[in-house]
C-alpha cells in the first residue's frame, strides 16, 4: 500500500570506508497548519522519526518536524567495517512504520 522508500546505498565497500547514504520516502508531510479551500485546518500528518541501523546497531537517526519538506529526504554517512544489513525505518504520526533493509558487501 505504502510507496516504496527510495535509497541510494552502495552495494559494496572497502573495510573502514565511509559511504554516503541517501534516503527518501514519498509522503506529503502535512504540517497541520494549512487550511483547505473551505477554510478548515488540514490535520497534521508527518513522518516524525527516521532511523538507520547496521547489523542491529544504531548508526544515525533523526527527529523530524513539519518544517522538513514533503517527501522527506535524509542524507548522511556510515563507516562500514564488515558486510551486513542496513535497516531504515520511517515513523508516521499515525503510528505506521515503514521499514526497508539493504545489504552491503564489505571486502
Amino acid at each position, binding site marked *: 500500500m505504502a510507496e516504496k522508500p527510495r535509497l541510494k546505498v552502495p552495494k559494496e565497500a572497502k573495510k573502514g570506508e565511509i559511504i554516503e547514504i541517501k534516503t527518501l520516502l514519498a509522503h506529503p508531510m502535512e504540517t497541520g497548519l494549512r487550511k483547505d479551500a473551505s477554510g478548515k485546518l488540514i490535520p497534521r500528518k508527518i513522518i516524525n522519526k527516521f532511523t538507520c541501523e547496521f547489523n542491529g546497531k544504531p548508526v544515525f537517526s533523526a527527529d523530524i518536524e513539519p518544517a522538513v519538506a514533503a517527501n522527506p529526504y535524509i542524507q548522511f554517512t*556510515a563507516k562500514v567495517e564488515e558486510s551486513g544489513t542496513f535497516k531504515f525505518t520511517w515513523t508516521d504520526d499515525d503510528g505506521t512504520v515503514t521499514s526497508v533493509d539493504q545489504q552491503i558487501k564489505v571486502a
Partner: protein
Amino acid sequence: MQTITRRRALGLGASAVLVLTVADVTGALATPAETDAEIAKFTGGKTPVQGKIAIDLPEIAENGNTVPLSIVVDHPMTEQSYISDILVVADGNPRPGVAAFHLTPASGKATAATRIRLQTTQNIIVVAKTNSGQLFTDRKQVKVTIGGCGG
C-alpha cells in the same frame, strides 16, 4: 495498481491546496523567545562556541517549499570523541523546530543533509553537541523570494 491509486490521491491533494503553499499557513511566526527556548532545551542553557559548522544553504531560494540544507561539523567521529547530536532551528517559521539528527561513531563523518520548508526570509541556526557535551553553533540567512504577479 494500488500504488497508482495512492499516487492519484496525493496528486489530487496537491492540486486541491494549490495556492495554500507554505506562505499561507495560519497563525503567527515563532518569536525569538520560542527559538531561544528550543535551542536552550538542546544546550541545557550553556552557550555554544561559534564556528566549526559548515552550513550549505542557498543564499536565495526561489520558493521556500523545498530548500536543500547540508551540514558538516569539523570534528572527529571516534569512540572517544564524536558529534552525537545536531539541532536545526529556523527563526521565521510558525514553529522554530526543523530537525534533530543523532549520530554515532559509526556515522563516520559529522554530516547530515535534508530539504526544508521556509515560510519567509529567515535564519537557520545549527547547534552541534559532542558526546562529552561540548557545543558549537552557526547560522545562515536564506532569502525566500517573492513572486511577480501576486496570484
